[in-house]
């Protein structure tokens, strides 16, 4: 049953309007307070909408009262609601954390701009998720991308500028490819509404133009998604961005791109037997596997913690795409649940790294000497995240791995199951490098000094995400059901 609900538009409008308010305030603390109130109210709205969608079915809102497909329609199905909750949760956790972290990393007179950009970025990501219109999605894609370029360039290190610039180039190519794809589709169908497109598509699916559109869309989104080998922008961007930004983007931005990929493949092309018509499956599986192995191997050799976790993200994106590429309900559910679980796990990891930077001023592996002893609570959260990356039982990562391997077995793809497990063993290596340095004695080097005591406002958010990953690792029924519902709906078309 469809219900119209104005709460949907508030998700996007509230942060969008709050952003200029921050500029007008021109005060760091006031801007932070605005961002805090906004992020927490969005979290409330997101949870309300998720419950509503699960209980009563899809929610929509028509802008200006114009009926679809002529007007712009916002629409929330279980998948969208799930992604909205992920973005809202991470936002609500990162903003309180950001206060101290940002004061430490960004010049005081620029801090209000940081919160402005954060709000714009949140607004853009939420917009991508709720809109049912292909062009409107492009607009939000640009809002979120432009704000994230600015956020990354605010990093302390001067190399943040080149990292942001590189991301800008790659991101713009990605967005341009996307809009070319949308344009080609518009030329063939005269429509921009996803639901409308999906009904027209079967009639024209085997034309060259649609094939070209699909290719442009897939490559464009894969760039934003950082699917191997289009991930080159990601390690530097994550490494040099301010810590709070890295945590936020790592847990949300790539996830939203995956959401767009799912939307295109299974909503727009939902009525077409996409994977039978186009040779997508071998390409996606190949990319996913290459990412899982090569990026994990790169992670093993990194000395910079942020870069290590960034490569690990590229590998984890491989798992999600692998689930999607199976094109079965179980596979999609695996990809979707990993989207959620990985947001929790990687969010924890980057928040913990940010806290280490705050307290010790250092970010390389060597600088973790004795941190297990001097910052026991924080390091424990980091280890929880590390175990989650490996997929040890009782953590959220285990749930993802369970579902993904189950999906490959159901699809009779034995070698894939073995490869998933093999690549998760690579994670053991890089997580254990961290563990050994942090906890085991290295007699000839003195432990690293704690410069500043870690504030609770940074420790508590880190632990909230760590505990969430433990909770959803042991009580996966809820998330598993949502992922399956979302996957079933995608597989059944709109």
């Amino acid at each position, binding site marked *: 049953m469809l219900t119209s609900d104005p709460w949907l538009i508030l998700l996007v409008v509230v942060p969008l309007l709050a952003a200029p308010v921050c500029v007008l305030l021109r005060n760091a603390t006031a801007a932070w307070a605005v961002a805090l109130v906004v992020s927490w109210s969005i979290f409330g709205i997101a949870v309300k909408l998720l419950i509503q969608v699960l209980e009563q079915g899809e929610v929509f809102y028509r802008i200006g009262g114009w009926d679809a497909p002529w007007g712009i329609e916002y629409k929330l199905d279980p998948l969208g609601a799930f992604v909205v909750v992920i973005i809202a949760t991470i936002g609500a956790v990162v903003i309180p954390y950001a206060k101290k972290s940002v004061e430490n990393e960004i010049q005081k007179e620029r801090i209000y701009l940081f919160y402005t950009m954060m709000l714009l970025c949140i607004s853009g990501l939420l917009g991508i998720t709720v809109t049912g219109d292909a062009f409107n999605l492009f607009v939000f894609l640009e809002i979120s991308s432009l704000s994230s370029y600015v956020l990354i360039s605010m990093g302390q290190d001067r190399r943040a500028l080149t990292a942001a610039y590189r991301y800008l180039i790659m991101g713009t190519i990605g967005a341009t490819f996307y809009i070319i794809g949308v344009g080609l589709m518009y030329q063939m169908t005269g429509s921009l509404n996803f639901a409308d497109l999906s009904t027209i598509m079967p009639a024209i699916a085997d034309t060259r133009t649609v094939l070209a559109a699909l290719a442009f869309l897939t490559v464009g989104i894969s760039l934003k998604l950082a699917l191997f080998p289009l991930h080159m922008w990601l390690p530097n961007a994550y490494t040099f961005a301010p810590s709070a930004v890295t945590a936020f983007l790592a847990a949300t931005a790539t996830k939203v791109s995956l959401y767009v990929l799912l939307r295109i493949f299974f909503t727009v092309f939902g009525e077409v037997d996409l994977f039978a018509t186009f040779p997508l499956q071998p390409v996606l599986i190949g990319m996913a596997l290459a990412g899982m192995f090569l990026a994990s191997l790169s992670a093993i050799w990194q000395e910079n913690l942020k870069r290590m976790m960034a490569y690990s993200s590229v590998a984890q994106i491989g798992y999600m795409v692998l689930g999607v590429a199976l094109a079965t309900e179980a596979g999609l559910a695996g990809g979707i649940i990993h989207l959620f679980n990985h947001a929790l796990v990687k969010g924890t990891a980057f928040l913990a790294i940010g806290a280490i930077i705050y307290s010790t001023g250092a970010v390389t592996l060597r600088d973790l000497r004795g941190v297990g002893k001097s910052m026991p609570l924080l390091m424990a959260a980091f280890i929880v995240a590390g175990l989650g990356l490996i997929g040890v039982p009782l953590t959220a990562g285990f749930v993802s791995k369970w579902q993904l391997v189950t999906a490959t077995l159901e699809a009779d793809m034995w070698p894939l199951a073995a490869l998933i497990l*093999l690549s998760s063993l690579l994670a053991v290596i890089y997580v254990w490098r961290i563990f050994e340095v942090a906890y085991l004695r290295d007699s000839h080097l003195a432990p690293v000094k704690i410069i500043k005591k870690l504030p609770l406002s940074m420790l508590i958010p880190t632990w909230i995400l760590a505990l969430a990953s433990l909770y959803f690792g042991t009580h996966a029924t809820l998330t598993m*059901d949502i992922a399956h519902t979302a996957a079933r709906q995608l597989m059944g078309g709109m």
Partner: protein
Amino acid sequence: MISAYLSQAAVIQLTLILPLLGGLMVWALGERNRNLREAASLITAILEFVLVASLTSDVLDGGRPSVDMLEMFPGLMLTLTVEPLGQLFALIASGLWIVNTVYSIGYMRGNKELHQTRFYVCFTLAISSAIGIAYSGNILTMFVFYEVLTLSTYPLVTHSGRPEAIKGGRVYLGILMATSIGFLFLAMLWTYNITGTLDFQSGGILADKVHGPELAVLLFLYVFGIGKAAMMPVHRWLPAAMVAPTPVSALLHAVAVVKAGVFAVVKVIVYIFGLDLLVDARADDWLILVAAFTIISASIIALRQDNLKRRLAYSTISQLSYVILGAAILAPISVAGAAMHMAAHAFGKITLFFAAGAIYTAAHKTKVSELDGIGRTMPFTMGAFAIGALSMIGLPPTAGFISKWYILSGALETSNALVILVIIASTLLNAAYFLPIIYVAFFKEPQKRHKNAPHYEFENHGEAPWPMVLALCFTALGTIVLFFYPEVPLALGQALVGD
């Protein structure tokens, strides 16, 4: 007694929670209140044993109390079920934990080890997960606690933080994680995919579901996925784990961890495959071969080890495969013998490790070649060592004789000439690597250390601190008592195949 106050379900859950609470107490008390901290460890261990023991009579009467802890996946619970073999394992682990705690106090203080609080806390975690494996009601629960056991014992293996400890830790974690994630996890999901259930059921859940080569592959994944059973070639983690302080080697790497491994293998054979399925399909012939190979070659390697703990470790690898062998023969009497051997080997091997640790603490000697005449200065320790060694060889009046007898009976019943030969050959090999130690300890003249040699200050040693001697005499006594009164382990072993 306890059931008057607590429901059985509560008692089962408490067996997992109590060690954790004890661990919290230990952590809260810390190094500053070390006497209180040690008291807390000891009291927790005693209470734990009382809790576990209180479940025994019900299980012997045929009860299978079960409790669901939480729903992990839709329709898949973390379930604890008490059944005979698990009860036996839980009794052994929790009972010997008491003795080991007494011993640890002497050892850790005697050797002035660092991070003692972390040591005791990790120990409680390890015990809790060992009990979790013992009472696991399905493979998922077993797998979860299996992994927790690996992770919680890792800090104990690398306790000293020295480079060789870190290196040993890598081998330990690498092999155990690689096998469990690579094989066991896959086997578990495969089983779930075929049967739609992961419950341990008597008679097995795979009957009529898998056939021929698939069955053999699945068994392979399980047996080598459970790396803790230390079947060759995934045995290397056990010698690597010997860098740990001796109480860890004694309770965890002679009892809790390795027994968890063979226990899991036996449980999978009995409750997942079912004896009938494997007998009909002859799917486990290769398992007998691998177990036989492990028994013989580990013994041969043990012969050549000069480091006492390493020799004991290889002896453990060999003895573990006795349990696998007993189960793989698939005769009910030998499966009961396998269960008995878990108890017998536990008491014998912990005695041997206790003795090795006592020798290290008192004399700072770690090599077999240094033990000439040590029986004269440490008569209790070496006497206990002799009893433990006799049990390993399988001579009366020690518990090892009984279990070997049962396994041999099973081999005769199924007229398996290979198994009979292997048992005879390995008995000779066991004698060859244990008897010389006893001989030189009691009958050779002691060698004096040179004045400038390291550890010269330990030259005029006597026995180790009394808690250690007390503990090792107690377990040696247990080895003999178990020979005369093997009723409880045997009854549990027979209940395992009886129902």
